[in-house]
């Protein structure tokens, strides 16, 4: 079985904010990390590899430095990596990203299963997985926490919904987006770290993927950002002091005033 995992390098979002004086996105000192949901995806793929000897390829669309993220993933046991990088890809929305990834998956050729993280913690859209599956015309399931083999053609996936849990039959080739319960990401191993250091990672650009400038990047995107601003600060922050009894009374009356259900 050949499994492809799509990952994204994202800014460590806890430090991303708008500078209150200049109203610009502060990028200084914000380091890049691998999107946490993608690490769960990598772990899910590696578990299948442990059990049944599948081959796992990781790919990412990003600037040249996204290569570090690929090596980091290789050091955990993934077999191959490919970097999709080209100036033309910059500014992609989820559609353009999915276009690019789908071209890469087609170029890889024999992919049976694609793992994606549920969402990226910078964009928070959770759209790329489903859009990619649609462009490849393969079935998909989202918010998967467990995946098992049902038979030679089908997988059994367990997914989390707002109301509980559902079990789906998914024929391969297929795509899944995964959540944290898919697995605690394993640490790198020394052998894999050494292999990752030496690994040759091909870089595929727009021509390698057979794409047109109008398909990708800002030009290929349907949505564009017209405004970026700081979320409104919470006004009226109140610190409730006093004895326990006083604090209880105060809080209760505030919540009652605010018509909080249940109070």
């Amino acid at each position, binding site marked *: 079985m050949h499994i492809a995992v799509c990952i994204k390098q994202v800014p460590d979002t*806890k430090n991303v904010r708008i500078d209150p004086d200049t109203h610009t996105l502060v990028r200084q000192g914000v380091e890049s990390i691998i999107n946490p949901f993608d690490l769960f995806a990598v772990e899910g793929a590696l578990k299948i590899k442990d059990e049944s000897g599948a081959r796992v390829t990781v790919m990412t669309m990003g600037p040249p430095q996204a290569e570090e993220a690929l090596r980091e993933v290789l050091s955990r046991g993934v077999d191959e990596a490919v970097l999709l990088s080209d100036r033309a890809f910059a500014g992609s929305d989820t559609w353009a990203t999915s276009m690019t990834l789908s071209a890469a998956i087609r170029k890889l050729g024999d992919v049976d299963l694609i793992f994606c993280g549920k969402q990226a*913690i910078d964009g928070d859209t959770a759209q790329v997985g489903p859009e990619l599956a649609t462009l490849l015309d393969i079935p998909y399931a989202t918010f998967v926490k467990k995946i098992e083999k049902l038979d030679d053609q089908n997988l059994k996936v367990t997914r989390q919904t707002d109301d509980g*849990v559902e079990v789906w039959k998914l024929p391969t080739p297929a795509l899944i987006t995964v959540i944290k319960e898919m697995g605690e990401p394993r640490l790198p191993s020394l052998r894999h770290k050494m292999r990752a250091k030496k690994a040759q990672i091909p870089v595929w650009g727009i021509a390698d993927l057979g794409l047109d400038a109008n398909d990708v990047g800002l030009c290929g995107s349907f949505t564009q950002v017209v405004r970026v601003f700081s979320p409104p600060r919470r006004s009226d922050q109140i610190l409730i002091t006093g004895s326990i009894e006083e604090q209880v009374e105060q809080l209760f009356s505030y919540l009652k005033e605010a018509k909080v259900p249940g109070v």
Partner: protein
Amino acid sequence: MKAVVDVKKCTICGVCEGVCPFAAITVGESSVEISDECTLCGMCVDTCEFGAISLPEIGTGPGADLAEYNGIWVFAEWRAGAVHRVSHELLGAARRLADKKAVELSAILLGHQLDKGLATDLIMHGADIVYLVDHPQLGQFTNEAYADVLVDLIRRKRPEILLAGATSIGRSFIPRVAASLKTGLTADCTELDISEEGLLLQTRPAFGGNVMATIVCPHGRPQMATVRPKVMKPLKLSEHQGRVESVEITEGIFRNRVQVLEIIPEQDQTAKLTEADIIISGGRGLGRPENFAILEELARLMKGAVGASRGAVEEGWIAPSHQVGQTGRTVAPTLYMAVGLSGAIQHVVGMQGSKIIVAVNKDPHAPIFDVATYGVVADLFEFMPAFIRKVKQERE
């Protein structure tokens, strides 16, 4: 692709450099450089009083004649035989937009053995038209069946705007709809409006909620957005009139690739985080797993859910399905009570959209107090039982 500076008009005043949210403009001694960081957001264009900056034409759209697309559609979510309240919230928001644009508002209801009363309910929440699509294969949600039926409907009727709830159903299938139609989709919007040019302005949090972004889809149709539940206000328009239309599904629409084998509804109401209006959440400050019982008691009293920080989950005190935060669930209830929880940023990004945040912590320097509406510096083991007593007392 980036903004272009007309050197003949540019006076090198430098104002544009200061307003670019992506730090893409560098104003030098004799020229203004725009780097590849430019995302064509247009802030500089608006700001330049000399009209020296302009945006290039965005790439070709799907070649659709935009004028053919009219009306606003809302996907009404049918779950467990009823219309989920997010549909009412969507109709409330969409009603305003439809009135602003003077167009029709339609609700699309997909399901099986649909009660006509459901359609009436949608009309009374603002829908001018309700399209009813009743089919056995829509009895149980699968992303393919729902998406392919909706795509087919959209191709036939051509709405200009489509809205859906950012629920687990919406987030699962709406991206397939957008990709199939080759149009843009914005996820999890918290604000919707119409621009001067008549475009849908889709505002949503990004970077975990640390930044807000407003997005448009100038060329793709329909303009699509999923909307965060519990943010928009439903409207009760009991006098409102509308019509119901049953829609036949096109032959061969169903791919029948995925199949639902089993549905296991969550029995523990306190685990239904995304549905809850009230969430009482606990962190490491609880000290031991047994102390979650205190939070469970209050949650049950208030018919809410119990949340947890990553720390509490990693200690094994409560199941991961209760985790709120960056790698857990994002919630936006009416009341979020953070008890014995320090409020590390990875947790806060998962709940800062809550309407009212109450923090109970004995450490006055805990970062949770920075986002709390009401902060209570107290020993949770004294405060919580007393608060529970008060709630019970007031019930009598």
